[in-house]
């Protein structure tokens, strides 16, 4: 009973938060409602006995990803309204039809897969979730785990190289004249 109440409460909250993210025009509202929605989603993982996944969700999304977005938003004036005009309603119609089809397939899939194979790596309730996950992750999934580690390293280096260009000039250490000079050259380049 408690489970059902928690499920519907968090389902309502998550859908409300993500709707705000998608519909709002203010980037700050979008960012904070997305962070809230991510935390509410972790509640489902706790309900589903996937404790470790829930903790990872909170740490990675609201700790790392949201901080990264907030940091990235400082680089562009995110408060500026982006004019959104939608061209070609026919394309929109087609895409909506395709989405409806996908929804039908998703709803039918569990009925088709009713007698799917049981448990490749079964859950041991007596171990606890974190230990169970660790046992499978570091034996059966060790190669994907290492590949994911290399991928994260590549992504980190790529992010630094892409975003870090021309970040060696520090406005607080420059004199007024030097800043004026810098802005002038920047304006000229923008006009080009």
């Amino acid at each position, binding site marked *: 009973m408690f489970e059902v109440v928690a499920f519907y409460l968090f389902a309502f909250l998550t859908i409300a938060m993500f709707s705000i993210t998608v519909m709002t025009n203010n980037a700050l509202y979008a960012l904070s409602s997305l962070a809230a929605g991510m935390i509410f989603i972790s509640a489902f993982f706790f309900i589903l006995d996937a404790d470790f996944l829930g903790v990872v969700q909170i740490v990675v999304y609201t700790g790392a*990803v949201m901080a990264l977005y907030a940091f990235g938003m400082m680089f562009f004036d995110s408060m500026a309204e982006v004019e959104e005009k939608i061209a070609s309603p026919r394309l929109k119609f087609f895409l909506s039809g395709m989405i409806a089809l996908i929804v039908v397939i998703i*709803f039918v899939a569990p009925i088709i897969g009713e007698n799917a194979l*049981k448990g490749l790596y079964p859950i041991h309730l007596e171990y606890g979730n974190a230990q169970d996950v660790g046992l499978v992750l570091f034996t059966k999934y060790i190669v994907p785990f290492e590949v994911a580690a290399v991928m994260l390293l590549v992504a980190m280096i790529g992010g630094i190289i892409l975003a870090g260009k021309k970040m060696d000039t520090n406005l607080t250490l420059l004199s007024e004249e030097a800043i004026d000079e810098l802005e002038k050259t920047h304006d000229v380049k923008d006009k080009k």
Partner: protein
Amino acid sequence: MSLALNDYLILSTIIFVIGLIGVIRRKNLLMLFFSTEIMLNAVNIGLAAISKFHGDLTGQMFAFFIVAIAASEVAVGLGLLILLYKRKGSINLDSIVSMKG
């Protein structure tokens, strides 16, 4: 009254469709990134639910790798977005249309 697998899958679908509406409707590139995150999270809920109801850890493993992929996607994507903003001065999706088609 207890929850069945279908409840979670329906919730997962609703959240996924919200993300998809965002991808189709928004022209702000930052919002496209947010919508992608929403869609990845929706899939994670579905995988965790299937993992629980089939008594199998594989779903949770996939969810972990999806989280890792989402994190690296954000790092590279934001780097590209900052680079694009420096070059074009705007994060509107229409401003990067340079090919005629």
